[in-house]
């Protein structure tokens, strides 16, 4: 048994990148301000000195250009980690991600796979307003040909990258920007983790909370409060948004018969809508009451703190919704 060490989410991502760079000469990190600046969220601070400018490659501000170049480099035998500063900026590279990375293998009849990893910060909570703080990971999860990951825990922040780099196809990793400072303990020998399955982060018999990324911790906190009232919520961390691990949450619903989906994305046409539909299709008769969802209010993210908080699912709203659902039946 190895000893656990105190660390942060940021440090876990950084260690994952360092390990990948040391293990595989084909790996390099590319993006805006990843080198001399040290990364917008300081994830790559210090890496330039260790690995040099070829492998810690600062790019101009041209998301489409450098994401496309990452795709080409992957075709050419490299294993690029492309960092896009925030999910909103990734829309400038949407064409390359959706029209090229996700389609090349198919269009070429299986000849050209694209082993690229694209990381980006996502999510609200830091008063970054309407052009830096949305949650578009659900959009990307719509696209066949992409794999979409949302590491919430330190283990996943540390372990998903290497598994993603070993994947032969494009993998998008969404890091919620409110998690970078999260502290916790991580085994000294923490390493690769699977990127296929959802995890039960807290078992419970009464109701299933399905969530991912930063909302996981709001759900866990809500579950603690609810437990004091005798309500045992089971908390499921999706981890992979595409493909979805249906089996894990369906098995949970078969035990609890009640489900609330907590998703920081907007409600309409969202990932939560997809999960809800799958539950209707596959577990309708397991349900004691309709599937419910807590999503972001459908408004561009406001700047003012109280308004931003009101726009997002919060511990309070989760607790209130679960209480109401439990009194139903």
């Amino acid at each position, binding site marked *: 048994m190895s000893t656990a060490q105190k660390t942060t989410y940021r440090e876990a991502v950084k260690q994952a990148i360092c390990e990948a760079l040391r293990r595989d000469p084909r790996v390099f990190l590319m993006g805006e301000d990843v080198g001399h600046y040290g990364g917008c969220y300081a994830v790559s601070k210090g890496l330039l000195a260790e690995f040099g400018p070829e492998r810690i490659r600062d790019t101009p501000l041209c998301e*489409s250009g450098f994401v496309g170049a990452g795709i*080409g480099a992957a075709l050419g035998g490299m294993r690029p980690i492309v960092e896009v500063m925030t999910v909103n900026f990734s829309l400038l590279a949407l064409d390359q991600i959706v029209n090229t990375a996700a389609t090349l293998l198919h269009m070429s009849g299986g000849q050209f796979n694209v082993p690229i990893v694209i990381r980006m910060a996502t999510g609200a909570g830091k008063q970054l307003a309407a052009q830096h703080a949305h949650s578009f990971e659900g959009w990307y999860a719509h696209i066949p040909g992409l794999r979409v990951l949302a590491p919430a825990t330190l283990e996943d922040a540390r372990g998903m990258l290497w598994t993603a780099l070993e994947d032969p196809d494009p993998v998008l990793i969404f890091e919620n920007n409110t998690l970078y400072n999260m502290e916790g303990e991580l085994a000294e020998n923490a390493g690769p983790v699977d990127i296929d399955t959802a995890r039960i982060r807290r078992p419970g018999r009464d109701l299933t909370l399905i969530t991912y990324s930063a909302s996981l911790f709001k759900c866990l906190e809500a579950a603690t409060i609810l437990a004091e009232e005798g309500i045992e919520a089971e908390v499921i961390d999706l981890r992979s948004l595409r493909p979805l691990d249906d089996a894990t949450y369906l098995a949970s619903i078969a035990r609890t018969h009640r489900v609330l989906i907590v998703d920081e994305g907007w409600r309409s046409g969202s990932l939560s809508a997809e999960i809800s539909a799958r539950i209707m299709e596959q577990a309708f008769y397991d349900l004691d009451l309709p599937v419910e969802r807590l999503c972001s209010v459908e408004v561009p993210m406001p700047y003012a703190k109280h308004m931003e908080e009101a726009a997002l699912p919060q511990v309070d709203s989760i607790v209130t919704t679960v209480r109401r659902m439990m009194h139903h039946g």
Partner: protein
Amino acid sequence: MKGLDKDHAIRQLRQMLLIRRFEEKSAEMYSAMKIRGFLHLYIGEEAVAVGVMAALGPEDAVVATYREHGQALARGMSANSIMAEMYGKVEGCCRGRGGSMHLFDAATRFYGGNAIVGGGLPLAVGLALADSMQDRKRVTSCFFGDGAVAEGDFHEAMNLAALWKLPVLFVCENNLYAMGTALRYTEANQDIAAKGAAYGMAAAAVDGMDVVAVEAAARVAVDHIQAGKGPYLLECRTYRFRPHSMFDTELYRTKEEVEQWKQRDPIELLVGRLTEAGLLTESERAALEHEVAAEVEAAVAFAEAGTWEAVEDLTRFVTTERRA
């Protein structure tokens, strides 16, 4: 002069004839409803693909556009596999998943068949970046039209390639129209080669109807790239004799203009030169035509005899199939 080395010139003439006859047959098969979707013909622009390919080696890469039958044939992909692809047959180069606009071939390092205008340029930069980081002496050629020059990806890719001194040969096929809108309505500065200077990139413009000139210019560009001097922008001034696609009534240009450009047909230009130099007789040309016609007929027969991929396989090639 290399361009008039007989065997070499005859090979180039044969390639241009093959592209021409292959595409004439493609249009025919389109009307016969054997080929569907969009079909963009290269007729008139053959000298560009043939001239540039002559300057590339087998290890080099090609990134092309949706108007890429010419590049694919000149690169050495078989007429059979391309025709079968356009028929949608599983024997096609992409198993019928791509069609006319998406030809790919790992064996000849042919990376599409990219149908988002400008989208192939960053891809070419990345392929060259991979070569540069792995110390491989290769050139990535990237074909695109004058329409792509207005896209952000053009400028982003030019900047990245020049900034990192990557071995990319950017080949702009300037046929004067972005689909049906003339360059003068879309570009503030219509001198495309001049745009290289904005990125500190070597550039030249060449008569894209003259295969000898295109090859010579491409060789200069490839030498520059192979000497480690960074990327190169080659503007080939050419003209598309046929409509943009099969759904184009050509309201945007006059018949006189098209006829004027046809006077400079790249095939007839080369034939004229060879005949003048005493390197090609009427019967030799007839023999070439005969050979090419047979190859095109064989491609049609191959496509006709091809099979449809099983519908059960529909969801293959979305993600890589792993060995169990």
